[in-house]
């Protein structure tokens, strides 16, 4: 044996207990702080809109001013002649025959050709030496539109003789939909809902309307494209999935994927709104045409047109129950408006249908969900992805049933709550803990926030602190006409991509000695969009490799795909890939150790050796060697793909199939105060309980739950993109008119976290990000109904709905 361990205090062959304090800190389960935190609080973190390049130009998009029209002509003459302008591009300048892109169906034009199908569709591109020059030049482009009638809802989409939004469809859904203006339709039939209805003592029906929500991430769509010497392009961009972007960009540019080098730049939130392309291809086209780096940054107005929104929906539900409170059956029909292009609509339909029952055991169901093509703004992925709309409706139904049976709404839900083993409407058994009744118990058991806090806050028991009242500093009430209400809701969300999608991720892990210390480097293409994946990856590497120093490489396309940062899947799937790669690195390192030092101690031959505190230790805690001595000058560098267990497609006719990977559950209790005179709502508290399987980083988990809860609050009382039903034009594309909750609108959000391990997932974890967005909306609605006695079948609730004006 040539090598001799250099561990002076731990001579080879002398087992020593690993000392207290040398355990690796910052591992899985700890509230480790973000590695990018310091950069973000000092302003040094480089977001995609902060990119800068010498000699850089600014790109701008000209967008359609009408929703549905034929384009007769586009005159770019004046724009081209504007001083400072370097390029003006229209459909005719696209370099290849591939002129569309799309996540699943390539139906979205890079630039409008022949026709525009929604308000704000990209028509032409300009780049210039100053952003204002680009904007002004774009305004000089003359587009001659011949307007067409607009399709805005199911009736206009399927009316006899309706104009087809896509006149020649050839996607794989067309053979299975009843009308070409329907993107996708998924029925689910299980048992016999008609027969089961005969057993019901009470039946409730409801028609619900869900408004169009926007992700409203704060960092606008932006990025920098730099032409490279080999004829390719480098793109620095904020996205949710680099490799998905690359697959869509390459054929349009006519470049092999290797010539498009994509690097994730800082992402200012995503929530589903960055799953589709926005400025990616546009910036590359302008850079390749002008031969110069081109930066594009949407302003907030353009951002509302630059990404897809949450599907607005019409939902019709019927539920029955026996007089002792057992659900008999459910029938529902969910109509989602997908807007002008497909985006993620087919998958949203799959989720809306398969999760339409919610976390309840009902054997007999008759379900139909579909998404329309229309001339409304395109809709696609947003946090909760089809499950949000359904949850709003089925939870309203639960309250209606409980009221009709004169039962407590929580007790009624608990009586029907699904458990481990319950079959979903798709016939898939839930094979992990499903603590639905327990989550409801937890939120209900919380002490109630004190009554009339506005009086207490005034100090003397008489004067009120108007800041704590509905209307706040607007001083609209001093408490007269203010009533309190309490509401509950619970929801069911799937984790990961479903219906047979090959939902894998890739991680590259390197282990080497730097300055005498073992250091791990983790390289994935995962988009860090703010959720904290980078924190968790470092924690996983510390846990698996026993090192304290972990470097996270920037995400780019030099490593294999990590899949999308969406569907609550990244900690599960890319976290799983990091774990898997670390395990492979560990095995190789132990093998190296056996070769070098195996003869010094018999424990080297045993299984179950661990890496801990920079040392190789037995499972009994005996130190065998320093990792630095095992590695010396060598580096172990391994890239591995990792997959969770496979899923399968839902049957086209019956909806049966094991389509989902994992489920997550959250419950909310909302306490609201409503000024019944002016219809103003103040949410006092929005308590949440969620099962996260295993909290890899408890601090980040709380941040996700509270953030998701607040987005649900937003859709309940204020958030809606308003589309004119006559013209299909967007009426409120600004933060002045599209309201998201401020810190004054957001109440205290106390959280109970359960950790019931899912045996199938890494560390037993359960995706966290989306579930809290489901139940917070119906909980707030239930509380407002409880306060006012009104039915309230639409979201968001506006003052006029509360005052009848």
């Amino acid at each position, binding site marked *: 044996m040539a090598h001799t361990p250099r561990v002076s205090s731990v001579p080879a062959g002398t087992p020593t207990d690993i000392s207290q304090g040398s355990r690796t800190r910052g591992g899985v389960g700890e*509230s480790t*702080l*973000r590695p*990018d*935190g*310091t*950069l*973000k*609080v*000092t*302003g*040094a*973190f*480089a*977001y995609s*809109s*902060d990119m*800068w390049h010498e000699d850089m130009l600014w790109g701008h998009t000209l967008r359609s001013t009408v929703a549905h029209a034929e384009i007769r002509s586009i005159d770019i003459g004046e724009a081209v002649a504007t001083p400072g302008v370097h390029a003006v591009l229209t459909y005719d300048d696209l370099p290849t025959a591939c002129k569309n892109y799309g996540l699943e169906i390539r139906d979205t034009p890079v630039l409008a050709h022949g026709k525009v199908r929604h308000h704000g569709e990209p028509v032409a591109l300009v780049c210039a030496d*100053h952003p*204002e020059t680009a904007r002004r030049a774009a305004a000089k482009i003359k587009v001659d539109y011949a307007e067409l009638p607009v399709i805005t809802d199911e009736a206009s989409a399927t009316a006899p003789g309706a104009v087809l939004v896509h006149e020649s469809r050839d996607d794989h859904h067309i053979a299975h939909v009843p009308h070409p203006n329907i993107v996708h339709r998924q029925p689910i039939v299980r048992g016999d809902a008609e027969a089961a209805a005969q057993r019901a003592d009470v039946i409730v029906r409801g028609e619900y309307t869900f408004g169009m929500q926007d*992700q*409203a*991430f*704060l*960092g*606008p769509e932006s990025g920098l494209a730099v032409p490279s010497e080999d004829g390719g392009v480098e793109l620095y961009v904020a996205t949710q999935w680099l490799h998905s972007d690359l697959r869509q960009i390459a054929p349009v540019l006519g470049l092999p994927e290797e010539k498009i080098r994509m690097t994730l730049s800082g*992402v*200012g*939130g995503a*929530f589903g709104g960055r799953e589709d392309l926005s400025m990616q291809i546009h910036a590359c086209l302008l850079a390749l045409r002008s031969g110069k780096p081109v930066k594009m940054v949407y*302003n*907030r107005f353009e951002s509302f047109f630059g990404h897809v929104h949450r599907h607005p929906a019409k939902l019709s539900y019927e539920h029955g129950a026996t007089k002792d409170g057992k659900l008999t059956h459910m029938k529902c029909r969910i109509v989602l408006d997908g807007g002008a292009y497909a985006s993620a609509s087919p998958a949203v339909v799959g989720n809306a249908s398969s999760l339409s029952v919610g976390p309840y055991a009902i054997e007999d169901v008759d379900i139909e969900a579909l998404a329309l093509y229309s001339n409304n703004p395109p809709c696609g992925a947003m946090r909760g992805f089809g499950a949000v709309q359904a949850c709003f409706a089925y939870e309203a139904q639960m309250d209606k049933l409980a009221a009709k049976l004169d039962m407590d709404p929580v007790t009624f839900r608990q009586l029907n709550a699904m458990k481990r083993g319950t079959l979903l409407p798709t016939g898939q058994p839930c094979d992990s803990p499903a603590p639905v009744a327990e989550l409801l118990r937890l939120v209900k058991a919380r002490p109630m926030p004190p009554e009339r806090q506005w009086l207490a*806050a005034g100090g003397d028991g008489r004067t009120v*602190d108007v*800041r*704590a009242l509905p209307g706040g*500093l607007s001083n609209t009430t001093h408490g007269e006409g203010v009533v309190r209400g309490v509401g509950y809701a619970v929801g069911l969300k799937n984790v990961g991509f479903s219906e047979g999608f090959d939902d894998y991720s890739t991680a590259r892990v390197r282990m080497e000695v730097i300055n005498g210390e073992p250091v791990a480097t983790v390289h994935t293409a995962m988009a860090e*969009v*703010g959720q*904290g994946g980078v924190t968790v990856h470092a924690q996983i590497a510390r846990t698996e490799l026993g090192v304290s120093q972990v470097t996270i490489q920037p995400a780019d396309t030099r490593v294999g795909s990590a899949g999308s940062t969406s569907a609550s899947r990244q900690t599960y799937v890319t976290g799983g890939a990091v774990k898997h790669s670390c395990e492979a690195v560990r095995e190789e390192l132990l093998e190296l150790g056996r070769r070098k030092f195996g003869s010094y101690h018999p424990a080297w031959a045993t299984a179950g050796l661990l890496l801990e505190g920079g040392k190789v230790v037995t499972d009994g805690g005996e130190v065998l060697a320093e990792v630095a001595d095992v590695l010396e000058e060598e580096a172990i560098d391994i890239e591995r793909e990792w997959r969770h267990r496979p899923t399968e497609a839902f049957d086209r006719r019956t909806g049966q199939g094991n389509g989902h990977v994992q489920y997550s559950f959250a419950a909310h209790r909302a306490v609201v105060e409503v000024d019944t005179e002016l219809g103003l709502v103040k949410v006092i508290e929005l308590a949440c309980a969620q099962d996260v399987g295993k909290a890899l980083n408890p601090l*980040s988990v*709380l*941040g996700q*739950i*509270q*953030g*998701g*809860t*607040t*987005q649900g609050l937003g859709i309940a009382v204020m958030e809606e993109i308003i589309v004119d039903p006559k013209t299909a034009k967007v009426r409120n594309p*600004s*933060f*002045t008119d599209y309201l*998201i909750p*401020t*810190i*004054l609108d*957001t109440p*205290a*959000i106390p959280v109970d976290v359960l950790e019931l391990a899912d045996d199938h997932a890494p560390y037993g974890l359960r995706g966290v990000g989306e579930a809290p967005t489901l139940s917070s909306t119906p909980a707030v609605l239930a509380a407002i109904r409880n306060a006012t006695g009104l039915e309230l079948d639409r979201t968001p609730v506006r003052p006029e709905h509360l005052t009848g004006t």
Partner: protein
Amino acid sequence: MRVHFTVNGRPQEADDVWEGESLLYVLRERMGLPGSKNACEQGECGSCTVRLDGVPVCSCLVAAGQAEGRGIVTVEGLAAYARHREDIHPGGGCTSGSCGTSLDAARRWQAEPTDGQSGEAGELAPIQQAFIDAGAVQCGFCTPGLLVAADELLESHPSPTDQDIREALSGNLCRCTGYEKILDAVRLAAARQEEAVR
């Protein structure tokens, strides 16, 4: 036009400024200080908040020319500014009538030689550290504006109630956190500030 101003305690000038350019654009694209963020450019989200002669403003709504001759503090200069305040008001304590930074003091402030224009200052302002420790940073796009606004709040109200914090930060939108951790961070910074005074 040419604009002269003091940014994070250092005299600066910007040439060829187009008359419609905002202070935000000049800071981000001409001064190389991208810390102030461009989330809405409509004065609605607060992510571009800077201090103009000590007063928090949305820099997207300030025409660059309006900044002529004035002093600006951005998130990049926040740590040095907090240290400077510590020098004139040790512990940040607010005895009646002398809380906050006077206009005059705000104008007179000069950066220390070690002050990082790029945010590489060695030490963080207490509010910056508290945001990290409390988990108040997620995507972080709202963070610079919130930090500038929260720092100003703690300067003038060292022991704010929750209602005070909510009111002071109501012009800063955050889409990720649900604000709970931001409240925690401001409470934490206030508590540490009080601790330091004792």
